[in-house]
């Protein structure tokens, strides 16, 4: 029965005890993305130029960045639909601060992140200790956050925002060697999150919580603090994403900031192969999912088709991505 290992047991290869580095879903996504880019490159020669890819990456950055936090949340079998509200609050407060006081960029970013973390921890505390389904809690807080944001807007737009945050924007100041800083920052976040989920105790425990919360509690995992932390991280990342959104916009911030982002983020996460039922998922998949969504949307525009048609493809991608995952899952269970 036992297949004896040629090597001594002390020489342990991590490859044999950890899950594969790349999941099947990620390979598929990468392939689809490659095919799309090649096709778009052929049909719209402008697509594969730096002038086209750069803005695409800038637009992907906030979605993928919040997607990192949302991946954590969904791995624990939760969900956060208050992201749009958090973006709005962080964006308007930061923008007002920039207009009112000439603070340096670091302070502005720190403010946004801290504010986001506070909002996120409100979600987390209510969910972990109120024991109401996360979708209900975050529907409620979404309304409250939006109210807060609109109060700060005070029924007008925020005008004449200085370019303090332009290092995160889409202009020349926003990139180095053609790589947008915001996207580079997102890559760093994805890398850290990947490492966290794969190698740390706290990260691995998130999967256990999502897989079977009760068993996780019995195994001695501190479920409630962990739950608070994932919503807190999502909020903090929404704060950072809000800075990117300010930087990529004009000098005016209007009240529609953030609208619809929560569903875009969730779409990126589920296309990336994270199971909405919890217990399984990866941040690399989320990054690829966000790239795919933005590629489709941008590609449709560049092909001269109606912009809105892109979202039809996004819908189809969600179904195909989750469908293939379901089929693979059923095949695996049968095996």
């Amino acid at each position, binding site marked *: 029965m036992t297949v004896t290992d040629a090597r001594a*047991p002390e020489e342990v290869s991590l490859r044999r005890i950890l899950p594969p580095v790349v999941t099947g879903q990620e390979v598929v996504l990468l392939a689809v993305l490659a095919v799309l880019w090649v096709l778009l490159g052929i049909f719209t020669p402008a697509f594969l130029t730096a002038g086209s890819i750069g803005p695409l990456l800038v637009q992907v950055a906030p979605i993928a960045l919040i997607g990192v936090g949302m991946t954590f949340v969904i791995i624990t079998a939760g969900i956060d639909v208050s992201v749009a509200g958090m973006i709005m609050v962080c964006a308007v407060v930061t923008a007002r601060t920039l207009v009112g006081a000439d603070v340096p960029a670091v302070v502005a970013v720190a403010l946004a992140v801290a504010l986001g973390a506070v909002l996120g921890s409100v979600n987390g505390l209510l969910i972990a200790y109120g024991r109401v389904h996360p979708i209900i809690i975050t529907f409620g807080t979404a309304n409250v956050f939006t109210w807060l944001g609109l109060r700060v807007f005070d029924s007008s737009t925020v005008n004449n925002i200085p370019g303090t945050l332009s290092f995160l924007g889409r202009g020349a100041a926003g990139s180095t060697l053609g790589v947008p800083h915001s996207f580079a920052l997102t890559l760093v976040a994805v890398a850290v999150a990947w490492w966290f989920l794969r190698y*740390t*105790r706290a990260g691995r425990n998130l999967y256990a919580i999502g897989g079977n919360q009760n068993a996780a509690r019995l195994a*001695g995992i501190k479920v409630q603090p962990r739950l608070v932390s994932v919503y807190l991280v999502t909020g903090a990342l929404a704060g950072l994403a809000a800075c990117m959104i300010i930087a990529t916009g004009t000098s005016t911030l209007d009240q529609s900031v953030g609208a619809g982002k929560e569903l875009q983020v969730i779409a990126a996460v589920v296309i990336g192969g994270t199971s909405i039922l919890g217990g399984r998922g990866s941040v690399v998949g989320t990054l690829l999912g966000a790239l795919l969504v933005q590629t489709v949307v941008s590609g449709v525009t560049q092909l001269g088709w109606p912009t809105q048609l892109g979202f039809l493809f996004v819908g189809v991608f969600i179904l195909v991505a989750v469908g293939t995952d379901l089929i693979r899952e059923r095949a695996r269970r049968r095996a």
Partner: protein
Amino acid sequence: MTDTAEQARPTPGPGATPRLQMRDISKRYGGVRAIRHADLTVAPGTVHALVGENGAGKSTLIKILSGAEQADTGTIAIDGRVVTIGSTSDAIALGVQTVYQEPQLFAELTVAENFFVGREITRGPVVDWRAQAPRMLALLDTVGLDRGVAARPLGSLSIAQQQQVSIAKALLEQASILILDEPSAILTDAEIDVLFDVVRRLASEGVSIVYISHRLDELFRIADEVTIMRDGETVSSQPIGELTVREIAERMVGGAIAEGHRAPAEHGDVVLELDGLTLAGAFEDVSFELRAGEVLGLYGLVGAGAAEVGEVVYGMRRATGGRMRLVGSDRPVASPSDAKRRGVRMVPANRSTQGSFSFQSIAFNITIGSLGLLGRLPAWVSPPTERRIADDLIRRLAVKTPSARQPLAAMSGGNAQKVVLARQLVERPELLVLAEPTQGVDVGAKEEIHRIVADLAAAGTAVLVVTTDLAEVQRIADRILVFRAGRVARELPPTASQAELLAAAAGAEDEPVRQEEDR
């Protein structure tokens, strides 16, 4: 009883002091004595079988040993030292590990992670796989699993492999006593061979194993000694070689006489006829006839395949071979709703997950299976009709409730079971399949349910009772088919002794002929 107790001498094992000595253990739950003066002595490095009927006190004794419950009186000594086991963590600290039938594992995590979840060895925040891995891989070797499974998600393993993982996980902490609670119930024969290899290897390494099983035949392949429990007492304890399957079965049931069985009655036309029916992986080549007014009992241990026969008849599963003829038609039963149309009703085995609409009213629970009767127009529900039907059944089945509006969740097990049964009796079915009809039900309600079944049969319903309850099948069946390992092992009349039934189900292959001659 006394002379068998005389034999209960602790058998000295290879070492001088026994690994485990539980003496004079008693435990009450409220007014009920779960165990009385029970003794269990296990020598180091031996496999000690613990057997008894359901309710004999095995699980209470095991709970006391694993720290889940505390004994009222008695002492526990491990390696000669008297210990106090006040909690499960006490037990683990003392080297007592338990592998339960339904282990709490994580399907999405890898096998390796399942070992350490919640007690990871870390270096800073990082799980130190290099520190964890050697021990885990060695344990995979111990339980006979390929090291390659370490990186696979647990959910992708077979049930048997998952069980091997949970045994290995139990060995992660220092284990000197390993309790295996019915480990073979869900395994195939080949998988049991693997399990036995593992158990033997552990014993040879000095681990003492307490092995609980209903499958008596397999005990002879694996156990060194056997302790038999009955009615909360340990009846005997001795090397297993001194006994036969039949002798063990007789001691388990004691001198229990059948509490009476049904008087033979006239039966009508054939309602259900199986001919070589097979469901791959569950049962094969099952043939019988069931007539109107007859109660046929399918008795077998958990996993023997009897339960699945009921599910196929009701259309929950499709047979993979053979023929089934239902009320004169050969057409296979496509679904439960198809079965209902053809006059078949079934009470499922698991009341809470398969039978209860817990926060809905009793009336809802009773009428949900017969929606077509609730109004004069099709698809219409008339509340007076609903109330009338519900009240009628509440009265007929003597369900104790102030009102049909009470939610089902507020009822005791016995009353809830009557409601679930009532759902299938709104119209008298041609064929009623009952799976474990009195599991988790108090004695009084059990009596009443048995009476209801008898009345139904008298009115002409064919009844198929699938049960693991020995006394029950004897009491209500006209004929009993004993299932073993997916096949009909014997057909016995209800007048057969309990020991005989148990021996047939548990695999006494050495003495099959005598009963055949009786018939």
